[in-house]
């Protein structure tokens, strides 16, 4: 094999590997979206909302220690509300988009955000 052919082959191989890795990285990012927490440990009530930082997500999840919670995003305060403390409230919005997640308690009594996540 000539020197030029070897160079071409090396170039093609490198380009192929780069393409392959990019494709696999994009695929795995979509298939296993990481859970990103927000507002963990914060006190909330029905007049005290906690907002997370804007991020790209499809699902939102929230749970309060003592009272039910409503999870929402942007200006939508409640896309899912649980009725009692310890219950998990999920909502899938069917598509990924950059949104600001939020969680609020359903009672005047304070509750702590046990876990709130987007994914």
């Amino acid at each position, binding site marked *: *094999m*000539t020197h030029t*052919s070897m160079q*071409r*082959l090396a170039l*093609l*191989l490198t380009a*192929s590997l780069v*393409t*392959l890795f990019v*494709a*696999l990285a*994009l*695929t795995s990012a*979509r*298939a296993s979206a990481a859970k990103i927490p927000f507002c963990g440990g914060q006190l909330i009530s*029905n007049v005290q909302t906690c907002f997370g930082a804007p991020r790209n997500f499809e699902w939102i999840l929230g749970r309060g220690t003592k*009272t*039910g919670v*409503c999870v929402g995003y942007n200006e*939508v*305060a*409640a*896309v*899912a*509300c*649980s*009725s*009692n*403390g*310890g*219950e*998990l*409230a*999920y*909502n*899938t*919005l*069917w598509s990924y988009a950059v949104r600001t997640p939020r969680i609020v308690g*359903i*009672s*005047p*009594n304070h509750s702590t955000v046990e876990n709130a996540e987007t994914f």
Partner: protein
Amino acid sequence: MITTTVSWRACASSLVTLLLAAGLASCGSATPDDAEPRPASTQPAPRVLERPSRIQRHNFALLRTRPEGLPARVRRFGTVPEVAINPALAQQIHVNVPGNYWLVPGIGYLCIVSDVPETPGIAIICGRTQQAIKQGVGSISLTLAKQAPAGMPTRLLVGIAPDDARTALVHTKGSVATAPVVNGVFVLRDSVRAPSDFIELRRIRGN
């Protein structure tokens, strides 16, 4: 020289084939077909409840009937790993209110899946089975103030309760609304613009 050219083409063909194969494989994992279970070799199957537990069936009449399963348009949410609900075990909660509700058992959890008009997406509210036996599980939907004229219902609460529950007391800002439990289901629809503070169950015997 001829030998070099043939080798070059063979290498290029092999690489193109490799790339195509890798591309097809990655497309397959990004868009799973709901109708076909994934082969065990590619990814472990998600953990889901195979059948309601004895305690779930014992306490909730809905779970003692043949499950309808979630419709395809709703079950496309896939899985919820923390609670391991099985969409095939979903029982429709028949209520005369807008939207559709299902009781879906999970491993140690009972969930209400709801598809309600004017509410984006699908909501899933899950309580531990033991908690559901004590307090029931309720899913609350609130209509946005601008979409609900004064006097029209703005709050909709659909809940499930164990067989021995007679009424659900819905506490909201110091007031209490009573919702009868019928066939393990209670519904409250009113003009309150806030979720309930908590729910309390009254039993057939005792409190």
